[in-house]
């Protein structure tokens, strides 16, 4: 467990947001009220966030996401885990992802 985020759990995008890929950018658009500040705001992800987001498919546990990324980037797993947990915290606060199962 990391700050309430369980690395053994899988997460997926919430049905309360619409996720679009436009010209190479991941754009997250709130669908229902209570996600963003209602008016005129969208959300995008930085490069790290994008790489993590595309792996949140509701089947793969976060620990597997960390392993995959550590391998791909040839980076220490501890460092990658920090990024994954950091992103998940941001997404959960904004109700953009949900825990699966």
């Amino acid at each position, binding site marked *: 467990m990391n700050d309430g985020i369980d690395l053994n759990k899988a997460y997926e995008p919430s049905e309360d947001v*619409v*996720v*679009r890929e*436009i*010209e*190479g*950018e991941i*754009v*997250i*658009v*709130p*669908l*229902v*009220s209570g996600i*963003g*500040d*209602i*008016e*005129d*705001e*969208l*959300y*995008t*992800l*930085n490069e*790290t*966030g994008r790489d*993590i987001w595309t792996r949140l498919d509701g089947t793969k546990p976060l620990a597997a996401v960390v392993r995959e*990324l550590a391998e791909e*980037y040839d*980076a220490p797993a501890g*460092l*990658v885990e*920090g*990024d994954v947990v*950091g*992103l998940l915290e*941001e*997404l959960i606060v*904004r109700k*953009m992802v949900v825990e699966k199962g």
Partner: protein
Amino acid sequence: MTRSAPAHVRKVRSGEARLWTSRRPLLTRLDIELTERCNNDCLHCSINLPAGDREARGREWPAGSWKKLLDEAASLGCLVVRLTGGEPLLREDFEDIYLHARRLGLRVMIFTNATLVTPSLARLLGQVPPLEAVEVSVYGMRRETYEAVTRTPGSFAAFRRGLGLLEENGVPFIVKGAVLPATRGEVEEFEAWASRLPGRPGVPSSAMLFDLRSRRDGRKNELIAGLRATPEEFVRFSTRRGGRAFEEWREFCARSGGGRGDRLFMCLPSGGSAAVDPYGRLQYCLSLRHPATVYDLAQGSLRGAMTEFLPEVRALRAVAKTYLERCGLCFLKGLCEQCPAKSWAEHGTLDTPVEYFCGIAHAQAVAAGLLEPGEKAWTVADGTARMKRRS
């Protein structure tokens, strides 16, 4: 990857260029005129067929066609769609079209008179917000004035009820006024009322330079022309809060540089937006209906219109001698509303100077000290020097 990355999720306003790190999408905004019909019959309106016009209703695109168009718009990267009319809420399938747009991840601008807002629609807009403030046109502060403009008994009460429903359901909205003979005495009251509404602070916009009908209805156009503010009235109204307007007008002129030459289109950036009328005809903007600038989507595609047709329209050049000799040389283009759509509505051409807007811009320039009374801006040899001298 780094542990010190401060934030992976970035909040941006969709109109900001920094949303795009590589290139902008082919289409960023789509304006949709869902119907020409309206349940009001406003004196000054450039688009209001009767609500019950069966011929117009029969020709309107069904929801399925709009949904397909929205699908294509989203696939081209579109972020914002504007649903307008006429009165878009007259469409019984409005909620269906709206929800489809929102489920595609589009933000939706809704232009309405609010009289047809129902409890169910207000709840829906509260639960699935449009992500843009609903824009509500207001035609007066009391029943007598409002209905003198809308010529529709009961419309004032319906508008107040609709606005109340939006407010109760937490739907952000802004109000826009219209300065007409009937409402001229209520401007201060309107602005004070608007400032107390939830949402955006500041002075609401009020239209007074009304467009003629782009469908070129001569009798209605005479009526609209008679309701427009004179140049003197416009200057007096715009400067009633002090001299800041003069500075802004000088800045507009300075920023926009010299004359237009033979350029016709000054208003929209290259690429990015398009408009579609109720029958599936794509236009450069909702007001420009010159046959040479209209594309039938039934015979093509949105992508085809964006990549081939609109660039050709944008490349059109003025040929009329009066335009080239006046607008082509005039340094007031930052103030003047001359454009192909206005030329079309008034004269049936793309490049005829519109005397009304020319008069308004000249009155502003005289008031701001950029011109002497009676002087014509296109006769000023060096507009840049004139702007510097007067600033």
